[in-house]
């Protein structure tokens, strides 16, 4: 009973903190784009502007509500958010919700399997390497992980594209679909298009998680309770699964949760190499063009995902390690 109320208090405390953080980040999302140098309207005019007519700039500013004082803009931003209205892109002539709906779904389809595959790969290979520390298996797996970890994402993605798409012709050179397909044919076509980008992201994601898992496993094997478990006569496999992995899980959960949280920000480099329409390029284009509504909308979704993933991690943390949030 006491343990339950302790957990409830723990969850409630976390929830209040998250709500406060969310509001703070919402305000930062409004302020940050406006603190950057550059002007979305001047950007919009670009090469087409023959005359640098201040009236025209003012007219465009008024059209996007940028002529009002900052505090009015801020309250209008909060009101719009309360109505779930993310506004209209200054540069792309589309509603922010529409733009993001399209990009977000593809980003989730690209990054979610990558994080999942990368994490499973890292946990399995990292445990194996740690378990067989200083063996040939450990040496090969660690070398491979270090290779991917130090390889710039652009290079790895371009290598995969060049070898498997250009030279071997096994996969397409980019985009999300070939177009003009539906039903199962469409699903398979999308999977075919996403194979290489998912592979690139999985390898990149797995490499650093592998190193953390491997080192944690190696360290835990030296702990006293492992010696005690061995003395009890438990098999090595049993020690690994029951005692070692369980202790590796909390930091691993944090890492995976962070990956899930930040997956909404997309994988800019991979999106560019494989010509994919995801959140990475949407945010990058918005920042370059100072497209305030798109930046605010994207940052909002990013915030929500990061906070949700962290909250989930906190909860799972408590489940994985009863000492957290339980009895003191």
């Amino acid at each position, binding site marked *: 009973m006491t343990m339950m109320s302790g957990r409830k208090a723990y969850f409630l405390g976390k929830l209040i903190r998250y709500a406060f953080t969310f509001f703070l980040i919402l305000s930062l999302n409004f302020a940050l784009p406006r603190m950057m140098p550059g002007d979305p309207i001047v950007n919009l005019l670009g090469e087409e502007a023959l005359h640098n007519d201040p009236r025209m700039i003012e007219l465009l500013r008024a059209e996007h509500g940028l002529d009002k004082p900052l505090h009015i803009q801020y309250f209008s931003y909060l009101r719009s958010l309360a109505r779930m209205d993310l506004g*209209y892109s200054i540069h792309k002539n589309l509603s922010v919700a529409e733009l993001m709906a399209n990009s977000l779904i593809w980003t989730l389809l690209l990054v979610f399997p990558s994080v999942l595959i990368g994490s499973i790969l890292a946990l399995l290979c990292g445990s194996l390497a740690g378990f067989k520390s200083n063996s040939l298996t450990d040496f090969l797996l660690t070398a491979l992980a270090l290779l991917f970890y130090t390889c710039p994402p652009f290079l790895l993605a371009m290598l995969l594209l060049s070898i498997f798409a*250009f030279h071997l012709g096994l996969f397409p050179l980019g985009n*999300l679909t070939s177009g003009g397909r539906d039903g199962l044919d469409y699903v398979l076509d999308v999977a075919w298009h996403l194979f290489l980008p998912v592979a690139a992201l999985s390898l990149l994601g797995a490499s650093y998680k592998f190193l953390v898992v491997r080192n944690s496993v190696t360290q835990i094997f030296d702990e006293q309770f492992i010696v005690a478990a061995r003395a009890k006569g438990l098999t090595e496999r049993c020690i690994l699964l029951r005692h070692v992995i369980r202790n590796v899980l909390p930091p691993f959960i944090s890492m995976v949760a962070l990956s899930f949280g930040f997956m909404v920000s997309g994988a800019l480099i991979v999106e560019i190499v494989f*010509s994919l329409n995801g959140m990475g390029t949407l945010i990058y284009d918005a920042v*370059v063009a100072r497209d305030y509504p798109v930046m605010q909308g994207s940052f909002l979704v990013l915030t929500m995902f990061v906070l949700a993933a962290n909250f989930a991690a906190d909860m799972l943390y408590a489940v994985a390690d009863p000492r957290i949030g339980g009895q003191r």
Partner: protein
Amino acid sequence: MKRTSGLLTIGLIFLCFCLIGAVWAAQTEKSGSSDRIAKLTVGTINQINDANPWDYYFGVYSMMLSHQGLVRFNNDGDLVPDLATSWETKDLQKWTFHLREDALWHDGKPVTAQDFKFTIDYDLEKDPLSKSYIGTIKSVEAPDNKTVIINLEKPDYNFLNTIAVVKTIPEHIFKSVDDPKKFNDKEAAIGCGPYKFVGFDRDAGIVTYQANDNYWGGKPAIDTIELRMFKNPDALMLAFQKEEIDLPYYYSKGTSYYYVPKLLENDDIGIEVYPERGITNVLWFNTAKAPFDNKELRQAFSYAPNYEELKNMFTAGYGSAPCAGWVPNGTLYYTEIRTLTQDVNKSKSLLDSLGFKDVNGDGLLEMPDKAKFQPKLLTRSDLPDSVRAAEMLKKYFANVGIDIEIDLADKSTHGEIMDEKKTHEISLAGTTFWGMTMGEGYGSGYTDTRNYGWSMVSDPKYQSLVDDLGMTQDKDKRKDLAAEIQNYYAEEMPQFTVYSMNIIQPYNARYAGWEYNPLHGILSYGTLFNLHKA
């Protein structure tokens, strides 16, 4: 028996005629269609966000394929009839255009003068941005179905250049549309050009156009044009080498020379090099700011760079030597003045005569008032070649004792400084063909402080030359004025070319009839009608 043989003979003769006829018909059909291109796939890194003519790149491709204006640029950069068959003006302020009788919208309705009047009025009312180029239009009249009269606020010789980029939109579609930027219906793409918009598959990154059978100029040579978008130029070039695309195309730009050696190994790929009518990188002085208001100082800067080295380094030989008269070779009434060359001694002596001396003995010059001379060179951080060129310029200027500080800014900040705040001292940025025709042409839009004014020239002598160009129709006088303005650039040096890269355009060599146009490049009107199997 005889009767049977006779019937058989007649039957055989008939059969032979049928066979010959069939073979002839088949051959005729084959030869008639053999030259036509069924599908041309164009790969590009220009990103279309939506099939809305107000989307920047969709607008650009609409102007090439599905929409038309009153006039258009031909392959020489001259203006020729498009929807208008002829035009006249007496005072350069009132322009009368006569429209062709047989132009139809893609939905079959006739194109009228009222449509063009509606286009201008609608653009000015609904799109504040349009004021930047058609803001000088006072009124448009459509006295009959085929006559358009445009009244300007002041005489403007260069008005045809401006009107050439205005695409006509159908009144019957847009009259009920309140906000065109949010009108994303398929009807929004209806035009009167040689191609009809078919569809935009955002996820596949493909925009499809189909030949317009009812086009007044006849059916174009390619049945279907597919634009395939890439975000990565390397992937685009891989797709080109793999023959997935027929043409790598960048609006107003060529392909990087990095790809040329690899492409030359492929017999099915052709490469053409066209002279650039814009300038890749120009050094702009803010002439309204001291000490850059001094022309001797600007001249001293111009003698410092090694132009030959810059040309080799940044264009790999696909460039041209910059001229002191600034406007690119190929511009109408181009005047050969002098080629810019490095002369370190002349640069140093000019600086010395202006009182710029090394007071503290650190090898770098101080200003006449002994203050440290460290001008800021602004350039865009997202353009790697500009950043590299800025580093090279820093080295050249240091060689004559000028210590410049490189100020990198992203596209947005750069635009804000150059276009709005005008707080730059020196800047490195390029120009486009269209940009060079702005204002009254000859780069006056970039120079004159009344327009873009990147070099902030408000000298009455220069502005009078620009105004005269805007009001003069006489060709001889225009030639003289063009020469004077180029001499002004060479003498006053408000900006100078650092290097200029030609347009490198690879294409599928299995097709012939590619034509280059300075505004639209190889995806020109000529290509659309003349492309055929090689």
